[in-house]
């Protein structure tokens, strides 16, 4: 069988591992895991790349940030991933108890299908050319990657008991006193050491040879409200600059790069006085998103935002193995929370910028600050 062999060989991606709950990225072949919110995955380029850290800047009262954290862990449990949950205020047990249960089929698909069929019946009479246009799709369609979760139900305790989870509750850990010459806050140092030993002991490291390729699993690290006063941020003289948190993130990222692990960190950046400090933290993470909830702000009652619970800002998307990053269609995103679905959607269509469309400049203002045009109802508080 002396077949003529050439040096030319078809490129075969041998590196891609088959781990449940993961898929390779379409852009750079990076292994991705779902964040637990399918629309969140799609806006950041398909999912969270394994080996990266994602930073969620919390909304003012932290409720939606905590929710994203729960989705992240719940998705890991459904996919059979290991997890590492670190908190300083709420006990990890409490968070685990509140994890939502997964919905097997997509609840949105059934609901969305019905109105569209009725819409098709009444054909357009005047603007008939638009009839054959595809429907505007606010929320992108999901594939079988990532799950929806029902917030009204909690996860089955039997499933929870089986999962491999390491919990880190700061007050229960033995934290040494702070030395003046220590490199960082002892709480962060302890957490970093724990993560490192967990990665090494449970063979999540890419260099570990003990684990056969087939039994690889993903470690999901979730850190809640990092940088809050309960983590001891700002314990040193408040006038001097404490570089602990950026240092911690630097070390964490270095650990993640050589491990089958991804990390989701929520940080209450609204409590930091120094915006430069926030920028430093953002710089130390791969993906950065910010939640801005409407609770308490005047936007809560603004009719433009009436369908949404807050704005979703994408601050940073990683450039992994390439010079460019994934660019979402629109950066004008908003989120809304329903019992069975947390969705991130395009806030509105981008403005018409083509030459043919000549619009007066005032149009933009009308959308943002709705002026009352005589058509409002009498009882409305918004009637200025």
């Amino acid at each position, binding site marked *: 069988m002396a077949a003529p062999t050439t040096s030319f060989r078809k490129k075969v991606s041998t590196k891609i591992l088959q781990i449940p709950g993961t898929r390779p990225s379409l852009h750079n072949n990076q292994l991705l895991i779902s964040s637990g919110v399918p629309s969140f995955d799609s806006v950041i380029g398909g999912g969270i790349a394994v080996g990266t850290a994602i930073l969620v800047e919390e909304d003012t*009262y932290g409720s939606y940030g905590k929710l994203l954290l729960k989705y992240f862990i719940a998705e890991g449990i459904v996919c059979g991933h290991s997890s590492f949950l670190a908190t300083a205020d709420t006990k990890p047990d409490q968070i685990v108890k509140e994890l939502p249960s997964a919905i097997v089929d997509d609840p949105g698909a059934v609901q969305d299908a019905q109105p569209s069929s009725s819409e098709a019946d009444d054909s357009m009479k005047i603007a008939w050319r638009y009839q054959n246009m595809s429907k505007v799709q606010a929320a992108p369609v999901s594939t079988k990657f990532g799950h929806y979760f029902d917030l009204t139900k909690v996860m089955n305790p039997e499933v929870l008991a089986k999962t491999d989870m390491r919990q880190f509750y700061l007050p229960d850990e033995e934290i040494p006193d702070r030395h003046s010459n220590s490199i960082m806050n002892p709480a962060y140092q302890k957490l970093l050491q724990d993560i490192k030993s967990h990665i090494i002991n449970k063979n999540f490291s890419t260099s570990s040879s003990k684990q056969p390729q087939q039994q690889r699993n993903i470690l999901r690290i979730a850190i809640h409200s990092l940088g809050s*006063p*309960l983590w001891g941020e700002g*314990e*040193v003289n*408040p006038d001097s600059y404490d570089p602990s948190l950026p240092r911690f993130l630097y070390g964490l990222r270095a650990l993640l790069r050589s491990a089958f692990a991804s990390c989701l960190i929520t940080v209450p950046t609204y409590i930091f006085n120094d915006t430069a400090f926030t920028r430093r933290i953002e710089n130390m993470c791969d993906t950065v998103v910010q939640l801005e909830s409407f609770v308490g702000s005047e936007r809560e009652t603004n009719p433009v935002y009436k369908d949404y619970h807050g704005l979703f800002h994408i601050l940073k998307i990683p450039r992994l193995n390439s010079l460019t990053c994934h660019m979402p269609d629109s950066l004008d995103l908003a989120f809304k929370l329903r019992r069975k679905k947390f969705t991130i959607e395009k806030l509105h269509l981008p403005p018409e910028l083509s030459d043919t469309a000549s619009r007066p400049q005032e149009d933009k203002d009308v959308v943002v600050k709705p002026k009352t045009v005589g058509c409002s109802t*009498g009882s409305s508080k918004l009637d200025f």
Partner: protein
Amino acid sequence: MLENIVSGREQSGSILIKDSVQQYGRGLLKALIIQVSNRVDQVHIFSFDPNADEKSQDLSGHLQANVQYHDCSSDPLGWEGTPDCYKLQQDFVLYAKESVKRVKDKKVLIVLDSLSPLLLHRVTPYTCQVVSRLKDQDVIGAESVQVMALLHEDLHDEPTSRLVEMVFSTVVTVLPPDRTNCYAVCDILHKKQSGKVMKSKERFSISPNFEIQDVEAVIILTKRKPEGASDTQADPAANLTFNLSLTDAEKEARSQLKLPYMHDDETKHGILQKGTAVHSKIFYQPDEADDFDEEDPDDDLDI
């Protein structure tokens, strides 16, 4: 909202009352302690503000015997060496653990009467951690723990109070009454366990027996109506050059109307049927000169 929190209908593990020199918040704190003390087994008041005796007299008539005062103000820096007095360099959580005893299967209310000395002598995160630890019933060893604290907001800068507010589930800011009446006003921010955040502004008064009365939500008027504006809304559909309110018959008539360039089913059908429609026919009569080929080399003619 205030009533719900006072009566316990709205669960709140920790309540912060913020006051200022303009409006004294201790009255509301006392009223809350009296109300909550009916639902708990023990009340522990840690008084940091140096007028503890006066306070104990104030409350003694209204409370059951399960109240204990802990002196945290008479010797804050340990100069006199008073035993059982909290000194600011001590760990407060340890001190509280030692002070609050025999609480197994009991419901406990812990009152920190003014956080200000702690905040002024220790770094802000320390106070946040203390409150967060005290909220945890396992630290004290009780069945449930509720924490109440007073904060003199004007003694601290804004970032400090923002950090402190973060650890409390309910924040009540006491505001001076407005000029039209004598009720005190408070801003309430309540974070539910589910993550939902509720906000309201309410007015209230406190009776000599420390009962909270006359709670009423304050409706914030965004803008006063201009003078002489009539209450009845002007009908925007009046005086229009076109008709906005069509009757069913009129709508039916409108749908019958065929506009130019309208692309209804009939025209569509017409376009599709154009090829087969019998508009005209061509009759061809071959003459002698016509070269009629019998063959069909391409085999495509139907001869």
